[in-house]
């Protein structure tokens, strides 16, 4: 029983990390149809932001909270720059966008390697996150609980922004009917850039969170990116709900299969399960219903 509970929390915390990583993607990929392969490198940028901020502010607690804000801004700035510089020309070629952003990711990765060096860097976790909490007989590290809370918080804020703010209304309008939104006076350019800013900013936040559970290296984003994409694929496009469910489902599934077998076999098993799942629901869990054929 203890093992089950332990695995449950491992799954939940993995799920919350995937959720943080996938939230931004579900915005940029789900709402705009852009496959941004540099999203992983935006996560990495968040990690290194934390590292740099901690160099400046020695108090681990303060620097973590400051990093969350700066990480969001750094990720967002990178995303907005990417949108304005490259993606805006390529909205009708999603698959080519994938390769172009992959190229951007390669450049950013090498950039990080040149600045910070290839070896992994460690960030100190603040005092109040050291140790663990005993829940139902299983010891859960506080850092993982913090990430879970952060993920829930991020989802909530994003949902509120999309639902209740003028910007969110514009984003939803542009997603549903670009032409009509434009004729109603919504600046779709501004909306696109904002969407990218928010989505990429969330990647930065995910990066800050990742520093709490492991070391930072130039390729850290890559390892999370594919799983994050799979979350979006399972969750379906255009709705946060799907992303949340898919992230936790994938996290739990991964942790249980890993417990039963090994980490390396789990990856393949999960992949096969995803392909089987797509046989049942090719569009993912939730989709916006359209009358289009594709």
């Amino acid at each position, binding site marked *: 029983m203890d093992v089950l509970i332990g695995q449950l929390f491992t799954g939940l915390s993995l799920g919350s990390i995937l959720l943080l990583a996938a939230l931004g993607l579900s915005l940029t990929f789900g709402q705009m149809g852009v496959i941004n392969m540099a999203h992983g490198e935006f996560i990495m940028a968040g990690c290194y932001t934390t590292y740099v901020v901690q160099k400046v502010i020695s108090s681990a607690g303060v620097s973590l909270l400051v990093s969350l804000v700066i990480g969001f801004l750094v990720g967002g700035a990178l995303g907005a720059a990417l949108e304005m510089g490259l993606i805006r020309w390529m909205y009708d070629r999603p698959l080519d966008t994938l390769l172009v952003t992959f190229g951007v990711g390669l450049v950013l990765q090498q950039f990080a390697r040149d600045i910070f060096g290839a070896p992994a860097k460690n960030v100190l976790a603040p005092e109040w996150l050291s140790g663990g909490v005993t829940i139902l007989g299983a010891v859960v590290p506080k850092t993982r609980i913090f990430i879970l809370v952060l993920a829930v918080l991020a989802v909530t804020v994003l949902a509120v922004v999309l639902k209740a703010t003028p910007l969110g209304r514009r984003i939803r309008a542009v997603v549903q009917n670009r032409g009509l939104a434009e004729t109603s006076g919504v600046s779709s350019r501004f909306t696109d850039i904002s969407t990218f800013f928010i989505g990429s900013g969330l990647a930065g936040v995910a990066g800050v969170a990742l520093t709490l559970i492991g070391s930072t290296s130039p390729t850290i984003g890559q390892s999370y990116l594919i799983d994050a994409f799979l979350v979006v694929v399972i969750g379906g496009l255009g709705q946060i709900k799907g992303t949340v469910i898919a992230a936790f489902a994938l996290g739990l599934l991964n942790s249980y299969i890993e417990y039963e077998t090994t980490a*390396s076999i789990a*990856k393949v098993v999960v*992949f096969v399960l995803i392909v089987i799942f797509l046989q049942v629901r090719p569009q993912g869990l939730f989709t916006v219903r359209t009358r289009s054929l594709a």
Partner: protein
Amino acid sequence: MTTLIGRVREHSSLTALGGFAVAAILLFAVAPAVLSDFRLNLLAKFLCFAIVAAGIGLAWGRGGMLTLGQGVFFGIGAYLMAMHLQMADAARLGNDVPEFMEIAGIRELPGFWQPFGSAPVALLAILVLPALVAALLGYGVFKRRVKGAYFAILSQALAAALAILLTGQQALGGFTGLSDFRAFFGFKLSDPVNRQMLFFIAAGTLLVVVALVRQLMHSRYGELLVAVRDQEERVRFLGYDPANIKIVAYVVAAFFAGIAGALFTPIVGIISPADIGVVPSIAFLIGVAIGGRTTLLGPVLGAIGVAWAQTAFSEQFPSGWTYLQGVLFIVVVGFIPAGLAGVWPMLKGLVESRFRRGGSSVPVVVRENAPPEDAVPAGQQVAEEKVESR
């Protein structure tokens, strides 16, 4: 709507024969004469990449399927060949297990190694397994009409999963992979003559592969494949099943990649998860994109060119290559989608559009899901307007 390929330009088979003759002379006579053993072996490695690229050109350039996981099939072929060579070496030395296992302390030969001791079984597996995996994935994805973007992500995820799986398998050399092959079907690999023979095998294979792709492109099937890429729904309405058309191209591409991997192993002498993961899988694409993804020879020449550039560049500036690779992806895919093969038509199109009234001044590009210009008059498309369409 103009695309790069309205129709395949009708080359006479004489021109093609001439081209093949020139290529054969270059590969079989000139290259061995002018290149040192080391360089010839390098070129053999590049030819392996070119074989993969030819398949990608078919699946991606002609079929519009962005396959980010060719490393999977390349890896299956390469590992199968590596396993056979290891078993053959062990048998010749009279050991129960390959050397690397002894060092790792594995005394018992794992079950899944057993069949690959026999050459016919290993060769058959190399030809069949990659195609089988591709057929399964293709069937699962295309039959259910999963989005093209999802297919790209899934193929990439498979590459990542396989790389992680192999890294975790001590019985397959784990992170370091398999290396130190002594012989290739009885021929000592230390002998330069045999290494040259490997080059000839790779060159011959590449010529055959190019000829096959050419036949496919010029056939009715090739026309259908392009039609599916540009207007999948219309092809469906004409009574074809686009899924089958796509699966065939994907399987053929996987088949080529598997063969290329099997040749790669003895030529390079080592195969490890680092050769087949996510990044190498995508790296296969850059040569295809630069050469011209929709053409016959573009991918092949592009792949050889990029591989050569990478070698030359990495010798000089190791980290510079990653930058260049990234920049190439951005510039070529973003702004020259037709690749080098399309530069001339693009310029010609620009010049012509200057003198044509009402002609589109947009250079020809391959657009995905572009609305057909002649389908319905503008303004009447509202009913089938997609939510995510732009």
